[in-house]
């Protein structure tokens, strides 16, 4: 369970999150929609512990524990995961090495033994099959030369390998063709279980046909402006932000 309470965040003296509150119980999928510049990625980054944001008020509790003072890797070890809106290219770092380093770092932090090569490979191969990622793919450097869609699939592959208990997906559907969208959505749905929760950030109602949310929020001007069920997304698609939330859009 993740609880975000009255969160205020600034960048360079500009307030971007202005008292945002949100609670996602275990097992639920919440969607966030909102206009460009509303603060969706900022929220995702602040949850993950990225540098450069000043939290002036509020708190983020993960299973009852505040994570605000934690480094990004400590949050990852607790089970947080962020699928990036813009996955970063890292030249010279092999994708397989990267995955293995990440998984073993998490296991080590949680007092588990490092995986041997064969076990690790089995986990990765399974995830690759789930996401229809080709074999030679992971021989390449992290995200270097990947197409937009391949980068997003790789994010979900990382999620499957790291098996978090709470994942934020920041516009994972953007740039995906229809088939890839289904593959990625299926990759997320496979992980849905009563102990895991998701926050899905998207601009398109269509994604929510594949990943059915329990709750839909509209974020605008740094705050949750409206909360509803999946029909809220349909209403939004039909009428636009102005009509649904008025001036805050």
């Amino acid at each position, binding site marked *: 369970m993740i609880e975000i309470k009255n969160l205020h965040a600034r960048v360079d003296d500009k307030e971007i999150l202005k008292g945002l509150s949100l609670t996602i119980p275990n097992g639920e999928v919440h969607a966030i929609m909102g206009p460009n510049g509303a603060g969706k990625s900022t929220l995702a980054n602040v949850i*993950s*512990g*990225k*540098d450069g944001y000043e939290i002036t008020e509020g708190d983020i509790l993960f299973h009852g524990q505040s994570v605000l003072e934690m*480094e*990004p*890797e400590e*949050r*990852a*070890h607790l089970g947080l*995961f*962020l699928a*990036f809106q813009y*996955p*970063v290219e*890292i*030249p*010279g*770092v092999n994708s397989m090495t*990267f995955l293995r*380093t*990440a*998984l073993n*770092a*998490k296991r080590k*932090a949680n007092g588990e033994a490092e995986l041997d090569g064969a076990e690790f490979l089995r986990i990765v191969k399974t995830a690759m099959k789930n996401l229809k990622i080709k074999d030679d793919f992971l021989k390449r*450097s992290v995200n270097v030369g990947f197409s937009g869609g391949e980068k997003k699939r790789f994010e979900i592959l*990382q999620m499957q390998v*790291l098996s978090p208990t709470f994942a934020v997906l920041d516009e994972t559907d953007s740039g995906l063709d229809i088939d890839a969208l289904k593959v990625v959505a299926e990759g997320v749905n496979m992980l849905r279980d009563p102990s895991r929760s998701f926050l899905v950030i998207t601009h398109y109602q269509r994604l929510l046909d594949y990943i059915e949310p329990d709750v839909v929020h509209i974020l605008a001007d740094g705050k949750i402006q409206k909360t509803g069920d999946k029909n809220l997304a349909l209403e939004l698609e039909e009428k636009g932000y102005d009509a649904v939330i008025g001036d805050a859009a």
Partner: protein
Amino acid sequence: MTLIDTLKSTLADDTSANAKLFLDNGIPTPKIEKWHYTNLNNIMRTTWPFQKASHASQQSCGESDIRFFDGHATVCSVPDGVTILAEREASAHPILQSMRTQEFSKRDESLAALSHSQSTPLFILVDKKVEATLVLENFSMLKESVNFPHLCIAVTEAASLTLSSHSHSAGEAWSNILTQIHIANDASLTLMNLQNERKDTAHTSHTFIQAEEGSALNIYGMNIGGSLGRQTIDIDLNGKNIQTNIAAANLADGKQTQDFTIHMNHNHPSCDTNVFSRNVCRGRGQSVFQGKFYVAQQAQQTDAEMSCKSLLLSDRARADSKPELEIYADDVKCGHGATVGTLDSESLFYLMARGVPRKDAENLLVEGFIEEMLTRIPDDATAKIWRAHFAAWLAATYEG
């Protein structure tokens, strides 16, 4: 008396042009353009007695085919197609003979001239496509010594040679290495030089290459050890359609200076050149990359690209880069790019968000940065060794 004074008095009676060049100019100072960033003060101030090691008796070569001990070669084995010539045989070979009698004349070549005047070269003739890598080691055993390993290599028409060399030392020393190479038409050369001297040893190497029409040059270099590591590569492209690929990495820590200085003269049409430089500096380390492409008026359709990236891992580290183009032909594609920066914060966050602790994430990024250079090395065995040397460098933290 300083080492240089001693050297000069030793050379005083030597009337050769090369000895004279050194006597007149001494050690290059930063006032000389090619040495602007790399200060040889430490060598100049050294007060060791000048010891030229006496001829080492035949030694074992260990894993190598040829080992220079304090500048003297022991040849243990050479692959088929490689012949070591005696001085008398070499003098009958016009190309090797011209190397033997070469007179340096530029002020910035005074150290090459010094080496030439003091050394007995090892003559290597390559007249086949040699598959196996010739493995060479430069080893300074003697403390407080200056050594002058000297190679003259001729690769004949359509022949090929892969040479992997590794320089290291057991005590404070100065290794001043001279390599003269001729690559005939359609021949090819792959040269890999790893400098990992002891932290108190100075290493200056001077490689001169004459390449003929249709030949291929692949040159890789890495400076890791030493108080000073300077590898100078001068290439004259003397024919059409020569392909050159160079990749060089400087790793500078403590108070080290690591330097690659590469000058290429494109004298004929349709040569393709790529020079790739990577530098990592931490502590008070300094890296230097100087690359110059000269393109003569008749060298049309030259395609020459130079890129240099430097990574500064501490506030007191410093990276100097000087890419230079001097172009007299009008139908050419020449470019260069140089960047200096710190570790990318977005990449760091990406790795940390996946659970990789900060220090490990930083190391992974530095590894990736150098891996882009290592991955260019076609000889897997050599690449593997260099990767291990680099990993040890990365894992060690020292302020020297």
